[in-house]
């Protein structure tokens, strides 16, 4: 938090991405990896961190180049920058974490079309200085990581009776296979959004009551 006190902008932008404008629950961005890889908590964490890596660096570089890139060709330019970082993380994972790469599969390559990254490049990094864009990338990335980790913990808990591979459910528990399949993903996310909306409403009601 020392960082935040010296430069309020940095911390504010970071928290905005992490909580206030959480990409999954508020902006509804990046839904495909959110649903596709969240069958186990470990997959959720690693997908989130890989996306954060790409988001931080693409935001930083797009922000550094924002005055050089002509407006008309900005979309192809952004895509090339983003795709370069995706290729980097893909190759790094193939070299050091081949098992994880095999599980996540095409979704790593598909980070390039994750709308979070594109949306942040277009709406934030293209208009703000590098340091703030870095904070935005970090906040949005970690916000995404937290929400998909939460979703994957719930799905793993009910679908396999474990969290991060450790059995937590009693022996007699029958895993619900459907949680690991496509319908489970949709329905869990739907119910989580109900919960988030509910909490938000309760919080704003309390704020109004106080004011």
């Amino acid at each position: 938090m020392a960082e935040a006190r010296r430069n309020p902008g940095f911390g504010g932008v970071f928290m905005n991405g992490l909580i206030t404008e959480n990409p999954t629950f508020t902006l509804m961005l990046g839904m495909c990896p959110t649903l596709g890889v969240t069958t186990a908590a470990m997959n959720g964490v690693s997908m989130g961190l890989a996306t954060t890596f790409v988001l931080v660096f693409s935001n930083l570089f797009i922000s550094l180049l924002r005055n050089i890139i002509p407006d008309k060709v900005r979309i192809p330019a952004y895509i090339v920058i983003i795709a370069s970082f995706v290729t980097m993380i893909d190759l790094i994972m193939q070299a050091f974490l081949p098992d994880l790469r095999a599980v996540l599969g095409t979704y790593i390559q598909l980070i390039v079309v994750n709308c979070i990254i594109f949306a942040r490049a277009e709406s934030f990094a293209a208009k703000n200085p590098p340091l703030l864009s870095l904070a935005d990338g970090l906040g949005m990335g970690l916000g995404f990581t937290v929400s998909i980790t939460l979703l994957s913990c719930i799905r793993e808990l009910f679908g396999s009776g474990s969290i991060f591979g450790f059995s937590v459910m009693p022996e007699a528990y029958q895993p619900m296979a459907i949680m690991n399949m496509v319908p489970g993903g949709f329905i869990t996310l739907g119910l989580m959004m109900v919960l988030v909306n509910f909490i938000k409403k309760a919080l704003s009601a309390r704020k109004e009551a106080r004011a």
Partner: protein
Amino acid sequence: MSTFLAILVGQILVNNYVMCQFFGICPFLGVSKKFDTALGMGLAVTFVITVASFITWLVQSFVLTPFHLEYLQTIAFILVIAVLVQLVEMALKKLSYSLYQALGVYLPLITTNCVVLAVAINNITDGYNLLESTFSGFCSALGFTLALLLLAGIRERMEVSNMPKWMQGFPGALIMAGLMAVAFMGFGGLI
């Protein structure tokens, strides 16, 4: 011939990209509020995916593989798709202005529709030839359109029905999509 039949049934029903594999969820949820716009989006995506499958196969076979540049696949494919979407937009503007106006808003969105890239990459991974790739692209796009239209139809009905307040909008659509996915699982053993 049997390969093509397998691709047709496989991509539309059994391995539907949206309902069975979680690709293209953003447009699936984003543009499924009205049936007409869903149809427009579906048509635009079908066109782009079909042409993109054709071109990315050529790029992979004649540029990337001969020069041992397979690691540039992501960059090359996404550039092809971005350029293609831009071209389609320009061509439509000149050739059929009414269609351009109908689809206009959705065209730029197609670049970040992950079905397009996923189909292109899977065509290569599955080892299809040029004709099979193009056909598989076309069928996957039909599958996407089918899922989109089904959800749009249901959501139009949901608008006028008496839903609990906390279920309206995205949560309701997500749970509905989950139930649709259960139905699609029924096609599982077809091929």
